[in-house]
């Protein structure tokens, strides 16, 4: 079938297109030449420079702190939301709730960033770590909710009644049934929140203040003010970090596409 060959060619082209920039970037981070273009030999000097840069270390600490806080809160909020959406499916309140949880998924980052900025400015809240964490929780909640909800929809609640009939206490039901069966879904939601928080630039850019510089914001300002070659190295380190989280997430949930 010719359509099949055409689509194979497009698929190969797309794969090349997807990986070319990443491969170039990784290669460039080991290139001794400052401006790339020509290969000047293998070097780790950009990595050395990177680990000596205190602003970068600081941004890393901020990124991880924000991601942890956003993950914890959005996982709690999202899990409660998913539970309510699943348990009270038929209630009117839940259809409003559903729309409210769903809407942030389609709103572009720019709009979410500017609207939160306007909220904080009109409430006279000082921009900083707190505002960034609040913003991150807000866009993570929906993703956690829908991940956990997908798990809950597959969950057979009769098991809980059966356990109760067999004399299991609330704690035992929680520890022996809910945690092992729903844990992976919740963990997947949490991982998603963590990666989304680490990945975010646009919202953080709007609601961040002095002292809340995250890695993406740092990379942005480095790019804007003459790109020093350490961004290559920084990107590779960052990539390794996200890959680790993503792979853990992949293992946490065996659900396929």
């Amino acid at each position: 079938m010719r359509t099949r060959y055409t689509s194979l060619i497009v698929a190969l082209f797309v794969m090349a297109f997807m990986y070319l920039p990443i491969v170039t970037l990784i290669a460039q981070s080991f290139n001794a030449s400052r401006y790339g273009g020509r290969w000047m030999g293998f070097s780790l000097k950009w990595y050395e420079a990177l680990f000596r840069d205190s602003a970068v270390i600081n941004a890393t600490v901020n990124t991880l702190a924000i991601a942890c806080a956003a993950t914890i809160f959005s996982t709690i909020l999202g899990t409660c939301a998913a539970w309510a959406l699943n348990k009270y499916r038929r209630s009117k309140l839940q259809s409003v709730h559903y729309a409210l949880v769903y809407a942030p998924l389609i709103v572009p980052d720019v709009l979410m960033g500017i609207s939160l900025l306007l909220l904080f400015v009109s409430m006279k809240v000082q921009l900083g770590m707190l505002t960034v964490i609040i913003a991150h929780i807000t866009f993570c909640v929906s993703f956690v909710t829908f991940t956990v909800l997908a798990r809950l929809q597959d969950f057979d609640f009769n098991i809980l009644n059966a356990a109760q009939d067999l004399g299991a206490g609330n704690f035992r039901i929680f520890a022996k049934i809910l945690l092992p069966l729903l844990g992976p879904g919740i963990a997947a939601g949490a991982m998603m929140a963590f990666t989304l928080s680490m990945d975010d630039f646009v919202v953080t850019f709007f609601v961040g203040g002095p002292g809340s510089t995250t890695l993406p914001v740092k990379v942005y300002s480095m790019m804007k003010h003459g790109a020093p070659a350490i961004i290559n190295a920084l990107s590779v380190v960052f990539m390794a970090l996200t890959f680790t989280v993503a792979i853990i997430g992949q293992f946490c949930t065996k659900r396929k596409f």
Partner: protein
Amino acid sequence: MNGFQTQTGARAAYNGRKLSEYLLTAPSFLWLTLFFAIPSVLVFAIAFRTADPSGGIDAGWTLASVESVLKNAYLGVLWRTVWVSCAVTAICLALGIPVGYWIALQNPKYRYWLLLVVIIPLWTNFLIRIFAWRVLLHPDGFLRQSLVALGIVPDDVFFLNNIGAVIVVTVYTCLPFAILPIYAAAEKFDFSLLEAARDLGASRFCAFRRIFLPGIRRGIFTATLVVLIPALGSYAIPDLVGGVDGEMLGNKIAAKASAYRNLPEAAALAAFLSIIITLPVLLFLLKQKRIIRSVVAARRSAGDSTK
């Protein structure tokens, strides 16, 4: 008496159920109302407030910001935002449909891995993906240098800081979001229908166009939505690879919010953008309510790593 008791009992159980529903719903409901719904409405209100000279929002009311947004100065940016987003969506569909088709034709054992290959680039940070393109498209970068050396590209052509770069990089970041819903629809498509069409005398292309494409309609709608809307709201990509001629509405919003610090004007622009975005959303949602679910699924599986 007895009947009355059971009635109050049922009522108490009902109230208890309501109460536990409220308690479970309250955290996310209140959070999203306060930090999502109210701010979204606030944008429209602040568009009519006066700017405070120190960069805040003053108590007065004015039409000045809305008027300045509706002035001709923004029409060019608006037009560019719309046509670039439409071009990006069209390219994503043109590439995504063959890829989704191809993956759906493969042995089920390998499909998962092929999809993973599509998704892995998304595991790299959004800004780093843009930065990687800046490295690749850089005038001294190996791509331009080798194309110039091979004589494919004249020496005075630059890849970076133009509208072409914005389109390429936006396609790059959006493409996996387009492939996933298209694949999800193609996977459920009955490919024997194509053979049937061929047997009945349809050409290969005709069978593809008249049978396959309508068959994966829902996937195509979803892909359009998940590409078009973020593209309309793009900010970082035009800012970093677009140069002066590549500015989009998102850039104007950010500039008004940070560099010029005129929040009411930023709000007016944001309100404008919200209205533009509502149009395709309404159009699609009215057409097919079930798309909501597939959008969620697509964003969930593409938007991040961990599905």
